[in-house]
């Protein structure tokens, strides 16, 4: 629970930091007092926990591919950590379709992790469609934040 909370705080800071187009979480240089290695916070701050998608698309873009590559390397380092990839969609679609779209996004991210050597059993998926948005606005900035697959430590 504590880890989840930290993740949420880090995510808010990230959203505030990129005004227009979302970018992947930067791989900030770890410091001596940084997050505990292998933790959710470590993933968010030092690896990047989210992969963004274009409208009505589940193709992982090049920026997302490099995030997933870092996630795969990180998971290789912490072999006992399991993760869940949650797929989301923006509000500009119908609920049931967006549930399917969110699932496809989560699967696309998971498939790339598995392709890079992560055991499939370590990566579960879930879709929230448009029902757990990350950004609460009704504009393109918010929608871009919400077309996302978010990896979290389970």
């Amino acid at each position, binding site marked *: 629970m504590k880890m989840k909370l930290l993740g949420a705080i880090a995510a808010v800071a990230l959203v505030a930091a990129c005004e227009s187009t979302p970018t992947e979480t930067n791989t900030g240089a770890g410091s001596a007092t940084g997050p505990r290695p292998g933790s959710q916070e470590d993933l968010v701050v030092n690896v990047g926990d989210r992969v963004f998608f274009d409208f009505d698309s589940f193709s992982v873009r090049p920026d997302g591919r490099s995030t997933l590559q870092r996630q795969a390397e990180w998971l290789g380092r912490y072999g006992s950590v399991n993760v869940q990839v949650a797929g989301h969609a923006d509000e500009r679609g119908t609920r049931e379709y967006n549930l399917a779209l969110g699932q496809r996004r989560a699967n696309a991210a998971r498939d790339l992790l598995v392709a890079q050597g992560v055991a499939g059993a370590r990566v579960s998926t879930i879709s929230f469609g448009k029902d757990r948005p990350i950004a609460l606005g*009704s504009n393109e900035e918010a929608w871009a934040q919400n077309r996302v697959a978010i990896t979290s430590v389970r």
Partner: protein
Amino acid sequence: MSLIPSAPRLLSDPQVDALRALSLSRRAMLGAGAATLAAAALPGSAAGQGAVIDITRARTDPLPIAVPDFAGATPFGAQIAQVITANLGRSGLFRPVDRRAFITQGAEATPRFADWRAVGAQALVTGRVEQQGERLRVEFRLWDVLPGQQIQGTAYTTPAANWRRIAHICSDAIYERLLGEKGYFDTRIVYIAESGPRDRRIKRLAIMDQDSENHRFLTDGSWLALTPRFHPNVAQVAFMSYQRNEPRVYLFEIDSGRQTLLGAFPGMTFAPRFMPDGNAVLLSAIRGGDANIYVVDLRTRAERRLTSGPSLDVSPSASPDGQQIAFNSDRGGNQQLYVMNADGSNVRRISFGQGRYATPVWSPRGDLIAFTRIAAGSFAIGVMRPDGSGERILSEGYQMEGPTFAPNGRVLAFFRETPARDARGTGYSARLVSIDITGFNERAIPTPTDGSDPAWSPLLP
């Protein structure tokens, strides 16, 4: 609000239908334990024509009707008249005469028709309530004011706690007698009650009468609940739940609150809808990354896949005869509406307009499919014929979706969302609304909190 300039003729000829003799069939004995209700025809009924109206003209000419308080046991007589008045007024097809204008109160055995003509009423409803211990006997009579003739008289007996249902049943009888098609007042709406900020939105299954009364929450909100749909017997709903963090379709028994997982699918199941015979549920399931449509038999629990391939096939809805299934799919590049035979064969696309089309729902009359359209930055609710012809948009706005038909196919409910004004989500709302299928009479369906995903029940058994 309507984008349709004139009401099209989609309905059977009500003038002819209204001449049918009154059938007491469905109302004759309404079972269901304590809710037992008996109906009996009163003497004096005559098949008159006078007050029949043409519903295709109703937009400009709602029928003036007077519903004075029913005589007898208080407070039931006044309450029943009020519920009937509100039902008929909300339909947009009747114009209840303002009771302050009444010259007489209608308690006489034979109404003083001159007094009702003088206040402009063309139809008159009178009634009497007798309390017999725990039970009520409610009789009502429908009069055609111009010829001064009774056109219906029926009596019901029921536990007193059931007085609202009597009022709805009377409303349906009046509606059917004067408009020539079945009413939709003795019905319920199940929906998702929403509260809290959107990133932590609490979504609870809730149910109420179609007039928003008898509201009840069915789940406690500790997990997301989405997209409830009624079983044809109205005793059960299928819905999607995130309990245990595993989004799946469940069956929910309304009276007991008992929930059962539907099917043994390895991944997410969603978008449930009962087959019209109530013996099977259509749903979408994710398997191997594909979203396909399945039918799950409720007796054997056997599941059968109806669509295949990598496309997203979601939101199935069967025709009233169970022979065809409408759904939406991105197989052609983006979301469009398709119809297939109930065994999955003969898939054909039916939507060809601008934009994306979603959430097809078959009318209980079988004549129309309602849908959500997303085009040019706005959402709309519309209807088209099952072959894709005759597309009409009924309502348009920032976001709206989830049309559901009242059982007579005459009225739709759906939900409207307003956009957030800022990054904190201020100003966002989701509200239930109803609209006539001609595109007029859009009005809010009041709910205690925000609401979404409405499903309108059949007439109560």
